[in-house]
C-alpha cells in the first residue's frame, strides 16, 4: 500500500512536469506532435528507471562508504551522460527497431533535468532501492501523461485564431497553467499532499 501511494504521489499528485517544474524543456520542446511526444516519453521511462537504480547503488555503496558525498553532483551527471551514450550504442546493436523509435530522443535526455532531479530526490527522500524503482517509474509515467495530454491539446489548437504575440510558446504556457490547475485537483487524494 505504501508503495502504491508512493507511485500515485509521483504519478499524479506531485506530477513532475506540471507541479514540480522538472523536465520543462522536453515538455515544451517536443510536445507539438503526438507521435514524437510518445517516443520521447518511452525514452524517458527507460532511461529514468535505469539511471535511478544505478545512481542509487553508486551513492549508497561507493560514495557514502568512501566519504565522497560532495562528489554527488559531478558523479551523477557523468553517470547519466555515459548511460545515455551506452544505451544508444546498445540499442543500435541489439534492438534496431527500438533504436529507430527512440534514437533521436536519447541525446536530448542528458539535459533533461527530470532525470537528474529524480536521482537527487531519491537520495534526499532516503528511498530504499524498491522505493527508488517505484518512484522512478511513477515519475516517468507522470511525465508521459503530461506530455501526451499536452501534445494532444497543441495539435488541436494549431489552427485556432490565437493573438499574434501568444502564438507558439506563450499559448503553450497558458495551456500548461490550465493543466496544472486541473492536476491540483488530485491534491488530497488518499491524503497525499503537494
Amino acid at each position, binding site marked *: 500500500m505504501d508503495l502504491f501511494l508512493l507511485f500515485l504521489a509521483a504519478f499524479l499528485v506531485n506530477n513532475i512536469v*506540471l*507541479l*514540480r*517544474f*522538472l*523536465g*520543462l*524543456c522536453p515538455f*515544451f520542446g517536443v510536445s507539438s506532435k503526438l507521435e514524437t511526444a510518445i517516443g520521447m516519453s518511452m525514452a524517458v521511462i527507460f532511461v529514468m528507471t535505469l539511471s535511478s537504480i544505478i545512481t542509487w547503488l553508486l551513492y549508497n555503496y561507493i560514495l557514502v562508504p568512501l566519504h565522497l558525498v*560532495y*562528489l*554527488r*553532483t*559531478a558523479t551523477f*551527471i*557523468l553517470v547519466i*551522460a555515459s548511460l545515455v551514450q551506452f544505451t544508444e550504442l546498445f540499442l543500435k546493436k541489439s534492438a534496431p527497431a527500438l533504436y529507430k523509435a527512440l534514437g533521436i530522443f536519447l541525446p536530448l535526455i*542528458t*539535459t*533533461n*533535468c527530470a532525470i*537528474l*532531479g529524480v536521482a*537527487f*530526490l531519491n537520495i*534526499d527522500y532516503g528511498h530504499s532501492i524498491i522505493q527508488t524503482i517505484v518512484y522512478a517509474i511513477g515519475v516517468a509515467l507522470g511525465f508521459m501523461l503530461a506530455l501526451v495530454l499536452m501534445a494532444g491539446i497543441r495539435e488541436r489548437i494549431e489552427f485556432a485564431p490565437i*493573438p*499574434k*504575440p*501568444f*502564438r507558439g*510558446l*506563450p*499559448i503553450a*504556457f*497558458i495551456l*500548461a*497553467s*490550465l493543466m*496544472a*490547475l486541473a492536476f*491540483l485537483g488530485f491534491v488530497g487524494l488518499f491524503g497525499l499532499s503537494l
Partner: protein
Amino acid sequence: MFRHFVNGILKENPVLVLAIGLCPTLAVSTSAYNALGMGLAVIFVLTMSNLIVSAARKVIPQNLRIPIFIIIISTFVTITDYVMKAYLPELAKNLGVFVPLIVVNCIILGRAEGFAYKHSVPAALLDGLGSGIGFTLVIFIIGSIREILGAGTWMSIPGGFEGFKVFGEGFLNYPVLFMILPPGGFLVIAFLMALSRKLTGEA
C-alpha cells in the same frame, strides 16, 4: 566588447527569447527573495565556468569538450550548494533540489559551448555576467509578481525581514493564492513572454 554584456540581457535573453533554463525560473520564483537567490547562484556559476572554459580553451581537446565543461560546471555548482547550505540554510531549503540542478541548466552549458570556448577571457566574462543578469532579471520579475499577488508582500525573507506590504494589511488575509501555486508560474511567464514579443516588435 560591451555588446557581449548587453546581448545576454536584452536581445538574447535566455528565458524570454531563447526559452532555456525554464525549470528553475518557474520552480523557485514563488517569492522575490528565492528568485534573487537563485539568480545570484546562476550568475556565480555561469561567470566562473565561462572564465575557466575560456582560459583553458586552448588545452581542452575538441572531442572531449562536453564532459570537461560538465566537470567544470559541476565543481562550481557543488561550491555554491555547500556555501549556501552553510550560510543561508533557509534559502537552501527553499531552493531544494534546484541548486544542484544548476548543473543541467542549459544556459550555462550553452554559453560555455557557444561562446566561452571560442572567445577571449574578458569577452567570456562579460558574456557570462550579461546572460546571468538577463536570467536573474526575468526570474526576479516573475518572483516579484507572484509574491506580490500571491502573498501580498514583496521581498519578505524567511526568518528575517517580513516584506513590504504592497496592498496593505487587509490583503494579506485574502491573497491570490493561485499565483504562488504552480499554475500561477506558467501563467506569469506566458504573459511576460507575449509582452516581450510585443515590445520588441517580433509579433
